[in-house]
């Protein structure tokens, strides 16, 4: 099973491992008078796990929203897979290979686990209304072809037993896992995870950490994640960028960040 996944096309996006996949350059975003992000630059290299951390309200989620096209920054440019872009619609970002999960689970509650993950492959399913009406033939073949891929993901995430359960009935930890599955179904070259461990107990966090590492290593997917659990962040990530009040205050390996005085001040506070 792992072999078939390893050779999957989504590891191959024309970027060499270690080269810059995403470059965020001098991005500023404000809502009226509120500056959510001011002048932030960082890069994400192919194949790494990049963490974005910072206290509440630092602009982390806004940053992800800018990257996947949900917000349009007022200033700055984003370079993804060698192409520069200023503004785009979220579904175009998906077309380019950016997938994400949400801080609050955003699954399709009335649909089964299987359907949720299948929905992640909507962009790749091309058979039009006419073939859908007939169902038998090309539409069914396409469905089965994608079902096979989806079953690989279900297998990988160990959610076989809940395949047909409506996701609204699932416990929170499993919902998070299904959401990861849906993002993986898009075969992204960049995966954005917004607090994948929020609200989980230790065991669930360990499971999720293992999946994040496995995705990174087996699929070669580049990951940018936001997380508040410092233990998880320091163990998982290759490089960390720290935001505070919409500004970048540190960038580097976990060890460098851990010993950075600005970071310590941001988290623990400084006497005024």
């Amino acid at each position, binding site marked *: 099973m792992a072999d078939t996944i390893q050779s999957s096309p989504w590891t191959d996006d024309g970027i060499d491992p270690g080269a810059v996949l995403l470059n965020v350059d001098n991005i500023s975003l404000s809502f009226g008078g509120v500056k959510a992000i001011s002048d932030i630059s960082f890069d994400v290299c192919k194949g790494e796990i990049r963490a974005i951390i910072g206290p509440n309200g630092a602009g982390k989620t806004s940053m992800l929203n800018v990257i*996947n096209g*949900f917000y349009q920054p007022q200033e700055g440019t984003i370079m993804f897979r060698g192409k520069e872009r200023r503004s785009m*619609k*979220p*579904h175009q970002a*998906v*077309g380019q290979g950016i*997938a*994400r999960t*949400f801080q609050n689970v*955003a*699954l*399709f*509650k*009335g*649909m089964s686990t299987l*359907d949720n993950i*299948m*929905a*992640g492959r*909507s*962009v790749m*399913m091309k*058979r039009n*209304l006419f073939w*859908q*009406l*007939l*169902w038998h033939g090309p*539409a*069914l073949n*396409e*469905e*089965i072809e994608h*079902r*096979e891929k989806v*079953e690989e993901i279900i297998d990988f995430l160990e959610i076989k037993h809940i395949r047909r359960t409506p996701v609204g009935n699932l416990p929170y930890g499993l919902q998070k896992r299904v959401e990861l599955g*849906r993002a993986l179904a*898009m075969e992204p070259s960049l995966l954005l995870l917004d607090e994948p461990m929020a609200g989980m107990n230790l065991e669930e966090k360990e499971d999720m950490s293992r999946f994040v590492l496995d995705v990174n290593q087996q699929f070669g997917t580049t990951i940018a994640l936001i997380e508040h659990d410092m233990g998880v962040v320091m163990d998982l990530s290759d490089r960390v960028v720290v935001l505070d009040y919409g500004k970048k205050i540190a960038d580097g390996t976990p060890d460098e960040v851990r010993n950075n005085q600005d970071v310590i001040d941001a988290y623990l506070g400084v006497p005024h």
Partner: protein
Amino acid sequence: MFYRISGQFKTDYRSDHALFRVRQDAVLMGIILLFAWVIFPFTANEFVFQALLIPVLIYSLAALGLNILTGYAGQLSLGTGAFMGVGAYACYKLVTIFPEMNLLVAIGLSGFFAAAVGVAFGLPSLRIKGFYLAIATLAAQFFLVWLFEKWAWLYNYNASGAIQVPTIDMFGIRVAGPTASSFVQYYFVLFVVTIMTIFAINITRGHIGRTWKAVRDMDIAAELVGINLLRSKLIAFAVSSYIVGVSGALFVFLWRGAAEPNLFDIPLSFRVLFIAIIGGLGSILGNYLGAILIVALPVILNILPEMVGLEINAAVVEHLNIMIIGALIIAVLIIEPHGLARFWAIIREKLIMWPFPH
């Protein structure tokens, strides 16, 4: 006991994607089809055809169209009656301009007119949602009925302002008009409804149906998995209005025989919406169950006292009828807000378990 599903294994995805994953469901469907295609038409009398069978089928089809839009794609619409009217008037114009045209073709084409109008009124759905969209479709309802009244070309400048179904033959058999037999009309309606239902099942279980449900359940997430919201909603409006338009054409040509503009007014929209809600939003089966409850049950209750030999004043029967149906609707919605289709799903689940409690 009868619904034992153990031992029915799926060994490939093709069989897992079968319409009936459980053999007993297929058998049950076969029995229902046998009743619809053979037993009912050969045992029914004129009254049963005209008051029960044909209207239930036509209302089911209208509810099916609405259910695709509201139940699957999550876009509330109050304009169903008017879209039925578009189908009916389009069909009327087609058969009067091209008298040689096969009625089946004319009805099939008239759906496209309804679909076009539906898409036009569906355009605001990208910006407005829920009740606000319902108000926008209400505008369609009032505008179209007004148009049916004022645009004399639509009813061929009749003095009465109504459309009268001409006598239409198909392959030498009379299918529409005052002299057509109910037997033939029933089969005509059943054929169209069967085809439409098969199409609806196919489209809702495929990837377009999945995009609709995704848009319904969480539109922001749908957009972020790469679904084009506008496109998905407009396809839903088109498919839904097409089916509703076809049902409107059947409504007038194969059942009513004539129609005035106010026939397509808001009470008709509400009736179809009630059928869809009570049957169960997001289900195909529910439309039929809902139509049986809303359309057929009052008729049966009306003739019931007479059949069992009770002598009750007709007005009393009429009022009792309204009270019973009203109470039933409220009871269904309290006991199972997801409609009759969910009722059946629960019964089926219990049957699978039976005689064990868990």
